[in-house]
């Protein structure tokens, strides 16, 4: 189960021993370099990077879909896309951005940084971690394969019944959608359990929950949201699958079904999902704002508990997506009030971020600009959200562009800006090189201007009565004067290309940094949390010695102490020195989980099994056989490594086992 690394003061390259001899049929892969080392890895950092790459690819795919949508809507009666293509396009844009970009990208950050922030050497279940990644890839491929196999899903990401039924959506698109999401859902569910166990069991000594970095806290809250909300969408997807593929009648009105069942199931998942998307962004900027304000987060416990209460109340607001669905006044009133209530902890967060900056010494790096961008844009999106909570007012706004404006301010302004802040903040940690700040500035300003040009006018369009999800808009409803729908739709479409250029700057920055970037200093931002106690990039085992934690912002407090006379902070060590000190005191034996073939094989098996729903029983049988094989392989891989694996290369025999639960 474990590979053994010889402790060393050099930059470590892991020495991998031969696989167990006892079960020779089930050998472990041994490559530590090349593509095999990525395909079969269980290292949370490699998995994190792969999550990031996969998510970025889908971000580009979803972005191209968005640009096509804006091209179609730039002029009245657009002809770029047919009605059918447009319906597929907006369905897949939302599905891709939510399930294949935003969640996996948050997963990338969580995978990479959560163990580092809590002073652990990996996640609790490394093989499951790899399985999550490959299932996500499989789900994403299945979802997008539908484009080439008869047409993508065309029912909107909310996929309301009965419009999602076989009669109303006769292509296989919805089938692929159901399977893709189901498989990606398994990935998220496994991942969430994995991270919860990691946080609860594997924190460094001394790191109580209330000394945990806020990013880790928010990720923990998100994982609980996922654990409780994903089973609901799983059930809904199973019902839909049986309805479409096996003639069940769960949403068939002629058989006595009520189509609102789907809406409730979908939004009981769907609303917590919104917080699944936004809280990682909140977590990231709760690291970035203090670092670049040179102050601790203002009101740490309030931020943590407001995050937790957003998560909790997030389960009690789902029907605000259904204010026009005919629920009756009592339900509408209750959900109206609960929706207003959730604005309160959200407001608390915004005030705490602003007060973190208050009295600080603000350093405007690109990461900081994106973080402040989040605060500003999310405030706008949050306030338009409050106007929706007023249910009667929402019956005018729902399903118009005003809603599209709102959730793009919240999700693009909130989530995506948070992620970009994270890219610039943690890039040197992951790759050892600083992203170019000048290009970063271009990246930021194009994105912030493009984002406001694209989504700002949608407020006006929506309040003026332009409904969403329409493949064309007509001049008959566009109003008169210069500032009619034509004007604002054109502004929005132009804005979307400005936004795209902003993202292009980021991609260029990545390429240039990879080619010409200089080695980053060990502690480029004078950071505050434990991940910066590791080298950049971190060694395979993260920490040479497991740190003992005494403070919130442990790393900062190892560098600075307060002068008792002047009450200013006095530097007592540099980050560089601290890292060297750790290396000097490295643990003698470090056990890490070994690579494995089986997560990838199992993920392929599950994917094929899923395709069997569309392509028939024989395919399903093949898939099931692979799943069975992979399960046996997985189980028979020695969970406790053979003695030979334990034999320390220096013959010391002293060992600290940290992760043997694959």
């Amino acid at each position, binding site marked *: 189960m474990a590979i053994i690394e010889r402790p060393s003061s050099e930059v470590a390259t892991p020495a991998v021993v031969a696989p167990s001899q006892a079960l020779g049929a089930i050998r472990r892969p041994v490559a530590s370099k090349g593509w095999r080392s990525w395909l079969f890895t269980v290292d949370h950092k490699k998995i994190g990077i792969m999550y990031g790459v996969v998510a970025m690819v889908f971000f580009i795919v979803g972005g191209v879909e968005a640009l096509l949508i804006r091209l179609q809507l730039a002029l009245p009666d657009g002809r770029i896309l047919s009605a059918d293509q447009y319906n597929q396009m907006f369905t897949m844009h939302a599905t891709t951005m939510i399930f294949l970009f935003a969640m996996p990208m948050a997963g990338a950050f969580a995978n990479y940084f959560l163990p580092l922030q809590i002073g652990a050497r990996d996640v609790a279940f490394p093989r499951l971690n790899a399985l999550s990644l490959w299932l996500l890839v499989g789900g994403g491929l299945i979802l997008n394969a539908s484009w080439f196999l008869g047409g993508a899903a065309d029912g909107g990401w909310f996929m309301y019944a009965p419009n999602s039924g076989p009669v109303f959506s006769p292509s296989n698109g919805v089938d692929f959608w159901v399977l893709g999401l189901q498989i990606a859902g398994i990935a998220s569910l496994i991942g969430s359990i994995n991270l919860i166990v990691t946080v609860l069991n594997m924190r460094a000594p001394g790191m109580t929950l209330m000394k945990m970095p806020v990013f880790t806290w928010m990720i923990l809250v998100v994982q609980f949201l996922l654990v409780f909300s994903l089973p609901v969408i799983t059930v809904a997807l199973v019902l839909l699958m049986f309805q479409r593929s096996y003639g069940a009648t769960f949403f068939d009105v002629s058989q006595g079904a009520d189509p609102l069942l789907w809406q409730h199931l979908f939004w009981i998942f769907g609303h917590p999902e919104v917080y699944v998307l936004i809280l990682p962004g909140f977590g990231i900027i709760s690291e970035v704002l203090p670092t670049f304000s040179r102050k601790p987060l203002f*009101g740490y416990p309030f931020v943590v508990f407001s995050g937790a209460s957003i998560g909790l109340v997030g389960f009690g607001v789902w029907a605000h997506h259904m204010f*026009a669905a005919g629920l009756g006044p009592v339900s509408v*009133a209750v959900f*109206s009030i609960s929706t207003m209530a959730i604005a309160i902890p959200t407001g608390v967060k915004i005030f705490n971020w602003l007060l973190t900056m208050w009295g600080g010494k603000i350093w405007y790096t690109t990461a900081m600009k994106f973080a402040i961008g989040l605060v500003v844009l999310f405030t706008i999106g949050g306030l338009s959200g409050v106007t929706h*909570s007023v249910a009667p*007012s929402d019956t005018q706004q729902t399903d118009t562009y005003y809603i599209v404006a709102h959730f793009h301010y919240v999700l693009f302004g909130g989530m995506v800006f948070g992620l970009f802040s994270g890219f610039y903040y943690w890039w040197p940690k992951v790759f050892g090189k600083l992203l170019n700040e000048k290009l970063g500035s271009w990246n930021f300003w194009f994105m912030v201007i493009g984002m406001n040009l694209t989504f700002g006018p949608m407020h006006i369009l929506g309040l003026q009565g332009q409904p969403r999800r329409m493949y064309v808009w007509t001049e008959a409803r566009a109003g008169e004067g210069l500032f009619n729908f034509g*004007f604002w739709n054109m502004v929005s479409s132009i804005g979307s290309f400005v936004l795209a250029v902003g993202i292009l700057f980021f991609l260029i920055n990545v390429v240039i940094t990879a080619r010409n970037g200089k080695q980053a200093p060990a502690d480029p931002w004078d950071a505050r949390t434990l991940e910066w106690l590791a080298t950049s990039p971190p060694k395979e085992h993260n920490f040479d010695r497991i740190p003992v934690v005494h403070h919130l912002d442990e790393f900062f407090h190892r560098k600075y102490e307060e002068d008792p006379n002047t009450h200013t902070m006095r530097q007592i060590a540099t980050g560089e020195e601290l890292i060297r000190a750790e290396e000097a005191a490295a643990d003698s034996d470090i056990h890490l989980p070994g690579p494995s073939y089986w997560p990838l094989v199992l993920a392929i098996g599950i994917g094929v099994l899923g395709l069997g729903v569309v392509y028939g029983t024989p395919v399903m049988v093949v898939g099931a056989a692979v799943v069975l094989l992979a399960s046996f392989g997985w189980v028979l891989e020695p969970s406790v490594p053979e003695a030979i694996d334990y034999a320390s290369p220096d013959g010391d025999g002293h060992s600290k086992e940290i992760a043997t639960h694959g």
Partner: protein
Amino acid sequence: MDTVNNVKSSRRRISTTVAGLTGLLFLAGCATNAPQDTWQAKGPNAQKISDLQWIVFPIAGVVGVLVLALAGYIMFKYRDKGQPIPTQGHGKPTAEIILTIVPALILTVVGVFTFRAIFELAKTEDTEMIINVTGQQWWWEYDYPVQTELGINTPIISSGQLVMPVGTKVLLRETSRDVIHSYWIPALNGKKDAVPGRIHLLRLEADKPGIFAGQCTEFCGLSHANMRMEAVALSKEDFAKWVASQQKAYTSPADGTLAKEGETVFLNQCVRCHQVNGLKKADGTPALAAPDENVYSGAAPNLSHLMSRNTFAGAMFDLLRKSCRADVWDATSEEFGAKYLAGVSESCLNQTDLRAWLRNAPAMKPMYADPTKLTKTGGKYRGMPNLGLTENDIDKLVAYLLTLK
């Protein structure tokens, strides 16, 4: 000191200007007379919503400006000017509690008004008139049940345009024959979904005569974008005239006219799905449409008084030529009734779109009308198929349809 004050006041001036300009831009940025504007209530239900909007939007706006101004101030004031690293304070619980309570109080106020409006808008006991509204892909059917006090002695079935009397509390009873649709006339009320298997209620009331635009706002498949509707409010006297016109007996065109030949075409083709009340077959028996045998939703628009309405094909196209349409839409509330009741005359008919529609309907509006792709619906269409009519047939049909007043 002077410089500091100057900087401060100029900063204040800048921020006031920016805030003012943004506000102006937003107001000026609105189109004039957008037909679906959600801020121009034309009836008491929409007015209630508008009143609420005028509470919550200004509050949100003021809070937003304050927070953003604060953010701007902090960003400027605490930029790195070489000051020492600040004391590592962890927050002030009093500040936290105040910043929690203040938003909570504001929201409580908003909540009270919201609560009241929700229940007021759900009232049904004051209803004065009922209209059944049924959505299907991709048009709305209106069915006026018998209400003798309003002169409705036999049910009136119409589509595209909802006609109602002003100053009357109308209750729509919505449902759907296929997927979920949503009925929305922004000038009169918010939207309410039409869900198959359920009946949802929506209050409508118009203050003055006029015509109000709407659009289906629940995604309902291929041609969702083309599923529109209009609500027409008539004075009570004009409404009585409209009711009478809708209950007028059918008169067959005179023998030997083009329209009479059109009636034959209609009997051969259109009547399979479209009902014209009172129309008789050549043998004298009533011609009964059977849309349930041909269309998946089981319904097709009743064309008995087609030319008394101004739109066709799910209100996607106007029956009136542009100038005639503008004449109706821009009429003052005093003149509106007469102009609307005039219906569609031959000179005002939008021949281009109507003929194109008769020539090849699926080319005009995306529908599931390809006979080779209807396996999942058992051969039934979703929408109107291409009937392969000759130009000659189309001439006759147009002449006939013009008689359906």
